[in-house]
């Protein structure tokens, strides 16, 4: 316990990176995911195949490999990022695939009559999508997005492979210093749990507010 308290600032710094990477990747992942979902539902054949391939490959392969490829693999093509940037890019692309599935499900659960009503008043498909479908889908999408976000919180630990000291890695550094692991593991478990609980709670409130209607 004592050692945990002594090293709290160090752990908190790790938690900060974990949160930072999660939030930034989630932000871009949301954009990528929404576009992908729309491409899959409304896109032409080519777009649909690309979107499907993207989702299948990203969800089917380990994020660690994706991170390594973005950070190290792209160097051969003259594309080089700093570790944090690489983490954002790799994880945004990763999250995007999951987000797109969440949005796709959500968009498909908006009753078909809603598009038809919009089309019947003269809106184009694109206008109906933007004004009528997506705003409703966002609400349906919140629970699965919450899952994705909470999952990502823990998945960020993979970026330690590219020299970002997030929460998990902080604990490992301390463990190898003190040769005891349980207090540190319990401490970071508690921190992860607090972060996800806080987040879940916040999301719950957003969901409540969105369901005034």
């Amino acid at each position: 316990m004592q050692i945990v308290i002594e090293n709290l600032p160090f752990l908190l710094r790790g938690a900060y990176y974990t949160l930072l990477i999660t939030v930034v990747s989630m932000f871009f992942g949301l954009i990528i995911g929404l576009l992908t979902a729309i491409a899959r539902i409304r896109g032409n054949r080519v777009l649909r195949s690309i979107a499907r391939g993207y989702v299948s490959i990203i969800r089917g392969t380990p994020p660690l490999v994706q991170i390594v490829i973005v950070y190290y693999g792209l160097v051969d093509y003259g594309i080089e990022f700093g570790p944090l940037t690489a983490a954002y890019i790799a994880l945004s692309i990763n999250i995007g695939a999951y987000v797109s599935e969440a949005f796709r499900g959500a968009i498909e659960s908006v009753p078909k009559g809603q598009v038809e009503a919009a089309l019947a008043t003269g809106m184009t498909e694109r206008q109906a999508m933007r004004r009528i479908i997506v705003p409703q889908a966002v609400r349906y999408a919140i629970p699965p997005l919450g899952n994705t976000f909470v999952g990502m919180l823990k998945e960020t630990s993979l970026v330690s492979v590219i020299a970002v000291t997030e929460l998990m890695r902080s604990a490992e550094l301390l463990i190898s210093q003190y040769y005891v692991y349980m207090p540190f593991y319990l401490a970071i478990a508690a921190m992860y749990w607090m972060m996800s609980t806080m987040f879940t709670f916040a999301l719950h409130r957003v969901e409540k507010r969105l369901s005034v209607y």
Partner: protein
Amino acid sequence: MSMIEMKQVYKKFGDNEVLKDISLSIPAHQVVAVIGPSGSGKSTFLRCINGLETITEGSISVNGHEIHANTSPKALKKEIHAIRQETGMVFQQFNLYPHKTVAENVMEALLVVKKMSNEPAYQIASSLLAKVGLAEKENAYPSQLSGGQQQRVAIARALAMEPKLMLFDEPTSALDPELVGEVLKVMKSLAEDGMTMVIVTHEMKFAEEVADRILFMADGFIVEDAEPQAFFKNPQTERAQKFLQKVSEF
């Protein structure tokens, strides 16, 4: 000039032929009631008129905008868009936008399609809501309204675009019997104002009283096309006789 002109229209879903050889002409200001058994193609007939379904054969023209079965996709899109600008539609399930208030529901197309600004759009919405008797519900959400009120909002929403033609697909059949009247009353007043209307309905009394013309559909065909008096008193086909008998059984 006729408002709707259909020539040998066929519609298939896969192998299922749902509309068969439909040809007719509906002049402006006519009120047409479409009746017939379930699955006979009434909704499909209506949805083909404003392009929610694309026809497999034949041609439809609405207020001069013509669609052929073989119109190129691009031209089709343009024509359908033009038709929809001049056509309002009211659905059985209301299909109001649940995330928007009553006023916003009515304003939506004005803002998005006509690119109006908020103020004049609100003026239009406001006066239409007054017309359907819902002036005081402007700021309510659809979920806070009764079915009859929701359907009247849906009518106001369709009217906002100043359509020359209104399509109704069983507008009262999701309503409590006590609420049916208020919607039918609004529709009747539209008819009296000279709106061209095509109404799919099971309300025989309403059809008899308000419509100028009855289309009886069965199995994808228009089996009878007659004046209400003639049709209800004296149906020509056995199918229509059987239908009318069943519907009035209890």
